[in-house]
């Protein structure tokens, strides 16, 4: 199954460039520029990766994206933009997100997505194996 990526960017040109490069890298990518509808789009499309581009966003849109990022638990989240803006996506209540500062580098985004998804899958596999190992240890009285 291919990795499904949603890109949210108020800057249509940047959004389309990102989508084009990710498509070329074999990632199933959708682009949205209605920032305030981000939550609905995520629910509807259940992505593996959410890319949030803060460039050209109004302050209320950035606040909205920040709130959305706090609610995402299972998706890989990548935040793009200027360092000063991205800093607002860090903090004790904010889950760990991957930050990529401007200038925009879509190829780097593709590489990071592949790396992160691969690590996540590997972790998932290990968890299944760990559970089996735990069961066997219990049944064999090895604990």
């Amino acid at each position, binding site marked *: 199954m291919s990795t499904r990526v949603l890109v949210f960017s108020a800057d249509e040109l940047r959004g389309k460039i990102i989508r084009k490069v990710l498509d070329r890298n074999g990632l199933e990518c959708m682009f949205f520029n209605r920032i305030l509808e981000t939550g609905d789009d995520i629910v509807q499309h259940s992505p593996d990766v959410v890319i949030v581009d803060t460039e050209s966003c109004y302050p209320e849109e950035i606040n909205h994206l920040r709130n959305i990022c706090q609610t995402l638990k299972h998706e890989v989240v990548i935040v793009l933009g200027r360092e000063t803006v991205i800093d607002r996506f860090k903090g004790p209540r904010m889950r760990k997100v991957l930050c990529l500062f401007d200038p925009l580098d879509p190829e780097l985004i593709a590489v990071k997505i592949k790396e992160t998804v691969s690590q996540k899958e590997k972790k998932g*596999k290990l968890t*299944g*194996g760990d559970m*089996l*190992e735990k*069961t*066997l240890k219990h049944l*064999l009285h*090895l604990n």
Partner: protein
Amino acid sequence: MSVDKRKNITAILGPKGGVGKSTIAANLAIALSRMGKKVVAVDLDLGASNLHAIFGMRGSPKSLSDFIQNRVKNLADVVSTTSIGDLGIICGGDDPGIANMPHQKKIKLIRHLSSLNYDIVLLDMAPGASFNVVDFSIIAQQALLVTTCEVPSLLNVYSFIKSAVFRRLTFFLKHNKWFELLELLNQAKEPDKHPHLKTMEGFFSEARKTDAAAADSARKMLARIKPLVVVNRVRTDKDARVGEVIKNLLKEYLSIETAVIMTIRDDNAVGDAIAKLSPIMLDAPSSPFSQDIQEIASRIC
């Protein structure tokens, strides 16, 4: 049960019954024969033999029973020829009580198995971890441990290796008259009373305090046990990974390094071939099962 390509005995072990051991043994024998090897498959599932049926044979004029009951002098005389290359088969016996043969007869059988003049002697073992099964597996230079992905089968694989490790160490320590270490090994059989001996590393560490040279020698002997794990009826990637789990347990608790982990895909063609009493390597040579068997044959050859 070590891997030593100079020798020729390979045991196919499936500590839990019904994991596909005999089907794998029969088809592996065919694959090896087709690679130009002179092969004999021996049905050691005494009392419940069925290897001949998987080959499509109704029976044989001579079987292992005849050798064990002294009706035939040499084991080589009960080898039945097949129409498949240079492949012979020794059909298992089903005389009542044959599974519990006396010790002397077992030693005689082991001696004759070791002197069979074949490139590869493939032993299709009985399930379980009885002394007979463990002892026959000990004479093999290669052991293929067949398991499915289910927990009961994995438990039996672990228990079988544990039995083999303890039996082999017992023989080794007795043979060298290292009785203090033997006493320590007996304590290790009760890990609840002796938690520091729960792992083989714990045993060796304690043994070194008594006799470092003996402990190192025993550890060296144990290091030669390198079973190959074959995970059968694999349906998903997750299934394929159970080999890694059992490998980790064997390493952590028994200090056993698993040589290779191989997988055989679940394949409906196997059932079809068995129903037709025809080996799948002949009935469906391009099936996933046949391909995987061929790969295993290449690995162990």
